């Protein structure tokens, strides 16, 4: 019953107003996206535009600052207001500026008297003045301007009360991550296991499959990525392309509903890129839902059914690959794709 509802709804992963700050820098600002079953979404954009962070926020490897994420209609992350929203930044920066000026002023004061004393040692009143200036300077340094003084706690708590924040954790988070799994640029295979054990281990521990069942599933997926004759190899004996294929097989073993690819081919040479892209294409043709951060424009054009161009934490342009690559509406997209 529940499944049917979801199939009708068809929205597998829903992102609403996602934002992520690292301290003061805003990496993602207000991103909304709907991922349907069977979608292959390519995210393109210059380095540092927040593509990888966005992907890592989706399975909560990175915790977003605010936003709402839901999987299969069930929200797993919901924070509408963060603490930063209730900091009076204007008065904070003003106060900080004033404080710094005061600090420089008192320090200068102290320095002037000290210099005078070096020049003229006979003047005894200077000694007292130096003492006073020193105490003043220390007093100023003792009370720095803190962000929490400008934080409106009561209204923050009220806002939280009206709209309680919710972040999935513990076993449910692990379950979610096995459904929304990830393939990394640097492969991140377990170096202390061989190829086969890499694929088996998480299955037995997370999905509680028996060893034999997990092994047959692992062999099935390793064969699908054409790694069946290297199953007993150690990870450091494989080439980059082979490692990435094993990583994809390892992700597939968890029976994921969405696979997030974080620049899967960026660390590979051109030949290996093709062998990995071939595997991903195969997956796409089998109807696997995928979100791929990539710099391979041909791949984005030919395989995906939706392309997103991101810059500075915003989605600048999104649409079918035909629209984005041939008739981009935004000037910045044209510039990035070298379209005149």
């Amino acid at each position, binding site marked *: 019953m529940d499944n049917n509802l979801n199939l009708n709804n068809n929205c597998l992963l829903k992102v609403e107003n996602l934002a992520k700050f690292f301290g003061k820098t805003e990496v993602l600002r207000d991103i909304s996206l709907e991922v349907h079953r069977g979608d292959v979404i390519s995210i393109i954009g210059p380095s540092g535009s927040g593509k990888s962070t966005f992907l890592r926020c989706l399975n909560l*490897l990175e915790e977003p600052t605010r936003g709402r994420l839901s999987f299969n209609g069930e929200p797993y992350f919901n924070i509408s207001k963060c603490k930063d929203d209730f900091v009076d930044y204007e008065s904070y920066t003003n106060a900080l500026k004033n404080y710094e000026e005061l600090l420089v002023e008192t320090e200068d004061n102290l320095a002037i008297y000290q210099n005078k004393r070096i020049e003229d040692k006979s003047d005894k009143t200077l000694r007292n003045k130096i003492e006073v200036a020193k105490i003043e300077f220390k007093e100023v340094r003792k009370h720095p301007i803190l962000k929490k003084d400008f934080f409106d706690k009561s209204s923050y708590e009220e806002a939280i009360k009206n709209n309680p924040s919710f972040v999935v954790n513990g076993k449910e988070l692990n379950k979610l991550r096995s459904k929304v*799994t990830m393939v990394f640029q640097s*492969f*991140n295979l377990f170096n202390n296991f061989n190829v086969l054990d890499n694929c088996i281990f*998480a299955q037995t521990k997370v999905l509680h499959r028996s060893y034999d069942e997990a092994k047959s599933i692992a062999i099935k997926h390793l064969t699908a990525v054409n790694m069946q004759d290297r199953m007993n190899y*150690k990870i450091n004996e494989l080439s980059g392309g082979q490692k990435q294929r094993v*990583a994809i097989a390892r992700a597939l073993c968890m029976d994921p509903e969405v696979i997030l690819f974080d620049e899967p081919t960026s660390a590979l040479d051109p030949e290996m890129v093709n062998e990995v892209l071939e595997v991903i294409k195969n997956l796409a043709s089998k109807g696997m839902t995928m979100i791929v951060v990539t710099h391979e424009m041909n791949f984005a054009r030919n395989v995906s059914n939706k392309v997103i161009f991101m810059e500075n934490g915003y989605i600048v342009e999104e649409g079918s690959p035909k629209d984005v690559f041939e008739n981009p509406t935004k000037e910045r997209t044209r510039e990035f794709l070298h379209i005149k």
Partner: protein
Amino acid sequence: MFDFGRAWNLIADNYQLIIAGIVDTIILAVVGTLVGLILGIFLAYGKNIKFKETDKKIIKVLKGICKGICSIYSTVLRGTPMMVQALIFKYGCQALGVNWGDIRFPNALLDYINGWFIAGLIVITLNTAAYMGEIVRSGLNGVDVGQVEGARSLGMSSARTSLSIILPQALRNALPTIGNELIVNIKDSSVLNVIAVTELYYRMMNIASTTFAFLEAYLILALIYLVLTLIASGVLKLVERKLDGVKFSLNPFRWARKRESF
């Protein structure tokens, strides 16, 4: 001058005592290193505790206490000589009413295992744990962050990740240093003679002072320590190779050859 005849007589007359001393030293070093390693793993995790912003205040305080205890422990134990620690342990226990010398094990496998031996074992273990804490911590910090991310992205819990993925790799990376600690322990167990642990140095000192063949006794002693440490480093090398997947072989020419990668 060194006299071969005297040296030979010394060995021939006292070989039972020397062997007993060697066994004692090996037990002290090996057990001290292994148990110290286990304690050191806990210590390393204790020192590696990270504070999260979302933690409650009580948890933060508990974490702080735990971390503080671990760092004080390793600072103090690494900053004082083991000989002094042994003496403090001995007299401290006496002040608390525990006299290790009174404890005897009548049915023990080796007749010279007594209370002092156990006390020495405790001292060397606690001392090694402090060093092992640092060694394991550097091993843990040396493991690529990607390994954690890879495991977490598959849905593994953080405890499972650190136990099954991170710790084995950390220990493998730290193995040369851990082995170094074993070699240090073989030699440093000699300072435990101050609390009357009957290890190799203690036995040889007694032999030397009864036979008056001091130079011979201590040269033989040095030779025995050298052989013990050489054996220890050889065993460690074998363990390392075994872990790296090279098949066990007694042919030293095969050890030098690397395994073909494909």
